[in-house]
C-alpha cells in the first residue's frame, strides 16, 4: 500500500487514526504496531514474517549485547551479518547470480542461472534501521530495548517503513516510550502530509508520466529538446516523489506523536556536490557517514585513504538504491565528484560566481540521473549523446509535445525546488491572515490530490463490460 492511494487515504488512514486515538494511551504502541503490520501485509502478504524475523534477530542481539560484556564485537558482527544477509539475498541475489555466471562459465563451472527473488518492499529501509539499533546499542550510544513490542514498533512503524526516512533508534527511543500528541503537532502533521501528498500526486506523478513516455522512445532518433525535457522531468520527478514521500512520513509521524528528522533540504539549490549530499536523502547520507565512512577513518586520514573511503561509500550508496550497474555507476560518479571537490576543485569552485556554482551542481546531477534512470550503460550513453550532441541523428523523430499541464507543473516544480515557499509554512512566520491561508491551502491541496487520486480509479469502456 502506498500513501498516495485512495485505499490508504480513505480506508486505512482514517481507521488507523481512529483506532489509535480511541485506545488508551498504554495500548497505543501496540495499536500502532498492529496497524503497521497490517499496512505491510496488505501489499507484501506473508513477507511480513520476514520483517518479524528481522525484528526478532535484532531484539535478541540487543539483549545479548546488554547481557554479555565479552565477545560483544562478535555478537554485533553476527547480528550485522544476519541483517545484511537478509538484504543481500532478497535484494541482490539475482544481480549477483547474473554477474557471477560469466565468471563461472569462463573457468568452466556450471552457471547459477537466472535467480528470481521477490524484493520485499522497504527491506532496504527497515534493515538499515535495524542495523542502526544494533550498532548504537553496541557502541553504548542507545539503551537496549527490552520490550519486544517497542523494538518492533521502531522497525515496523508504517509512516517510515517503506520509503524512509531512515530513523535512527537513538532519535526516537525516548519517543517510543513517552510522547506527547497535542493539537499543534497534529495540525502541523496534517499540513506536512498535505504538502507531501501534493508533491507526489500533483507534481511527481505528472512529470513521471511525461518522463516515462520519453524514456520509452527510441534514443537513437531522439532530438535534443526531447532528451533534455525527459531528463529534466525525471530530475524533478525523483525529487518530488522521494521528498514528497518523506514529507508524508514526517507528517504521519506527527499525527501519531513522533517527530522524525528532516530527510531533504532543497538539494537542487546546492552549490557543490558535497552540499548536495548534505541536503539530499539526509537520513541515508548521515547513516553512511556515521556507520561506514567515519569507522573507515573518515576525513582524519591520509588523502588517498579519504578518497578511497569516499569512493567505497558512494559505491555502496549506489548499490543501496538498486541492484544494477546503473545505480553503481551513478553512485561512483557522485563519489568521483566528491573526490575531485575534496582534492582542490572545491576551493576553486567556492570562488566562482554563485550562479556558475549552481549550474555546475545542476548539470552534474541531471547528467548523473541519466545513469540512474536508464538500466543499461549503452542506452544511457546513447541518451547522453542525444542530449549533448547536436548531430546525434540526421532524422530525428517528432519532438515530444509538452502540453499546458506539463509546462505548468514544470514551473511549479522549479519553484517548489527552492525555499521560496518555506516561510509560508513556517509557524514562526507571522501575519494576520497567514494561519487561515495555511488552512485554506492545506485543504485545497488535499482536495485536489483526492480528485487526482480518484481519477486513477476511473476506468471507462466504450462498450459495456460486465
Amino acid at each position, binding site marked *: 500500500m502506498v500513501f498516495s492511494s485512495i485505499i490508504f487515504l480513505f480506508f486505512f488512514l482514517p481507521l488507523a487514526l481512529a483506532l489509535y486515538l480511541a485506545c488508551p494511551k498504554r495500548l497505543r504502541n501496540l495499536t500502532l504496531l498492529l496497524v503497521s503490520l497490517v499496512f505491510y501485509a496488505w501489499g507484501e502478504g506473508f513477507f511480513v514474517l520476514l520483517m518479524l524475523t528481522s525484528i526478532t534477530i535484532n531484539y535478541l542481539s540487543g539483549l545479548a549485547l546488554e547481557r554479555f560484556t565479552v565477545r560483544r564485537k562478535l555478537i554485533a558482527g553476527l547480528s550485522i551479518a544476519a541483517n545484511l544477509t537478509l538484504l543481500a539475498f532478497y535484494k541482490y541475489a539475482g544481480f549477483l547470480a547474473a554477474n557471477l555466471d560469466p565468471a563461472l562459465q569462463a573457468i568452466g563451472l556450471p552457471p547459477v542461472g537466472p535467480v528470481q527473488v521477490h524484493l520485499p518492499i522497504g527491506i532496504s529501509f527497515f534493515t538499515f534501521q535495524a542495523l542502526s539499533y544494533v550498532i548504537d546499542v553496541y557502541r553504548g550510544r542507545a539503551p537496549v530495548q527490552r520490550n519486544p513490542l517497542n523494538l518492533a514498533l521502531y522497525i515496523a512503524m508504517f509512516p517510515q517503513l517503506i520509503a524512509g526516512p531512515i530513523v535512527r533508534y537513538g532519535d526516537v527511543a525516548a519517543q517510543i516510550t513517552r510522547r506527547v500528541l497535542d493539537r499543534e503537532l497534529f495540525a502541523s502533521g496534517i499540513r506536512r502530509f498535505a504538502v507531501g501528498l501534493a508533491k507526489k500526486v500533483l507534481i511527481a506523478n505528472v512529470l513521471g508520466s511525461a518522463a516515462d513516455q520519453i524514456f520509452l522512445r527510441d534514443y537513437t532518433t531522439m532530438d535534443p529538446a526531447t532528451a533534455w525535457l525527459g531528463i529534466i522531468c525525471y530530475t524533478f520527478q525523483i525529487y518530488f516523489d522521494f521528498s514528497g514521500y518523506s514529507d508524508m512520513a514526517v507528517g504521519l509521524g506527527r499525527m501519531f506523536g513522533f517527530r522524525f528528522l528532516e530527510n531533504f533540504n532543497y538539494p537542487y539549490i546546492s552549490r557543490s556536490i558535497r552540499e548536495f549530499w548534505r541536503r539530499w536523502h539526509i537520513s541515508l547520507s548521515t547513516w553512511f557517514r556515521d556507520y561506514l565512512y567515519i569507522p573507515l577513518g573518515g576525513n582524519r586520514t591520509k588523502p588517498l585513504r579519504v578518497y578511497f573511503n569516499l569512493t567505497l561509500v558512494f559505491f555502496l550508496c549506489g548499490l543501496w538504491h538498486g541492484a544494477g550497474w546503473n545505480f553503481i555507476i551513478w553512485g561512483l560518479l557522485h563519489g568521483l565528484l566528491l573526490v575531485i571537490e575534496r582534492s582542490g576543485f572545491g576551493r576553486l569552485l567556492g570562488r566562482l560566481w554563485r550562479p556558475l556554482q549552481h549550474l555546475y551542481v545542476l548539470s552534474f546531477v541531471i547528467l548523473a540521473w541519466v545513469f540512474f534512470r536508464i538500466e543499461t550503460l549503452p542506452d544511457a550513453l546513447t541518451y547522453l549523446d542525444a542530449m549533448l550532441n547536436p548531430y546525434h541523428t540526421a532524422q530525428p523523430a517528432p519532438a515530444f509535445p509538452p502540453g499546458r499541464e506539463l509546462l505548468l507543473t514544470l514551473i511549479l516544480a522549479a519553484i517548489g525546488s527552492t525555499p521560496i515557499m518555506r516561510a509560508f509554512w513556517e509557524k514562526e512566520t507571522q501575519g494576520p491572515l497567514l494561519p487561515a491561508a495555511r488552512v485554506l491551502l492545506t485543504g485545497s491541496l488535499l482536495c485536489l490530490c483526492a480528485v487526482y487520486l*480518484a481519477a486513477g480509479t476511473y476506468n471507462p469502456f466504450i462498450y459495456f463490460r460486465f
Partner: protein
Amino acid sequence: MSAAKTDLILIIGFALFLALPLTMLISGIGPTGAGTENRVLAPPPQWADLLRPQQLTEGTERWFNDRFGMRNQMIQGYNRIKLDLFQTSPTDKVTIGRDGWLYLTETVNQKIPEDPAFYDRHFQHWKNRRDRLAEKGIPYLFVLVPDKKSIYPEYLHVTGDTDSNGRFAREMAARGDLSLLDLGPALRARKGDGPLYFRNDSHWNFYGSLTGYRAIAERLQVMLPGFQAETFDDIPWSLSICEGGGLARMLGFPKELKERTYMWPVWDRWCEWERKEAEPYKTEPMPDYRKPQTWTCPGKDLKVLLIHDSFMTALRLYLAQNFGRTTFVWDYIDQQTLEVLIEREKPDLVIEQHVTRLLLMQ
C-alpha cells in the same frame, strides 16, 4: 484568527475529509453505478478470501476504489480540470483531436500491419468462409467499415497512412477474390454532404451508415439477381443537436459535449418489424444489447444472417428493410458457430460486417 483556532479547524476538516468517503460507503450513499464508465462495479470481498490474503487485499481495494463516497464527483472534478484547464483528455482511452473531434486512442495508436503473413492468414480465413457457404449455395458478403480515423484523419495530429481499411482491402484483392466490400471509398466520396461520423463518438452517424448501406445495396443487387434494394431517397435529412456519444461518455460529459449531426431519420415507410430475441448460440453470458435478435418484416421473403459489430446499430434499419427475416448476431464468430447458425437460420444470404479496428486485432 489565532493559530490555535485555525489548527482546530484544520483538524476537524481533515477528519471529515478522511472519514466522509468511508462513511458514505458504509451508509450506502456511495456510488451504486459506474456512471459513465460502462462497466459493472467490483463486488465486495468474499469471506472465503480471508484465507487468501492477496485476493482479499486486491479484492477489497478494487471494491473500495469503485464505491467510496464522492467518487463520481471527484472524477468529474478531475475530468473538468483536464478538459477545461489543460485541454487534454482525462483518460488515455480517448484522444482529443482538432476542433473537439474525439477518437478512440486505441484506434489512433493502431499501426497498419506490415507483415504479409497477417494478410495471408486473413485471406485464407475469409476465403474458407466464403467457399464453405458457397458449397451450401449461400452467397456471402464481407463488409469492411472504416474507422473514424480513416475517414477523418484531418482532425488528428497524426502523420503517415491512416487508411487501414484501404490497405486491408488492397492486400486481400492482391491475393484473390474474396467478396469483400470496403466502404471507405463510398464514404470518402460523400464527405462533402455533411458529417458522416459523430464528432463525439467512434461510430458513423445515420447519414454515414446510409452511405455505407447504399454501397452494400449496390453490391447485393449484383450478387442476387432480381434483388431490388430500397434506396431511401425520400428520407428528409436535417442536422439536429444530440448529446455526446460513447467517447463523450468516456470523458465523463455526455450531456455537455453536444454536437450537430444527422440522427435517426424520420420516415413513414419503415417496416413494422416483429422483433424477437433469437435463440442463444453460445453459453457465455452476454449483455442484452449483444444478444442475437430476429426482425421479421411482413411482405418480404429473403432471409439474411447478419454477423456484425457496433457499426450495425446505425445500419440495421436500412438493411432489415429489405428482408423478410433478419437475424442479427453481434460477435466475431468462428466457422463452427457459423455452421450452427446456418443450420438453424437457413439464410438465403450471409453478410458479415466488421470495423477495421477490431479486424486488425484478430
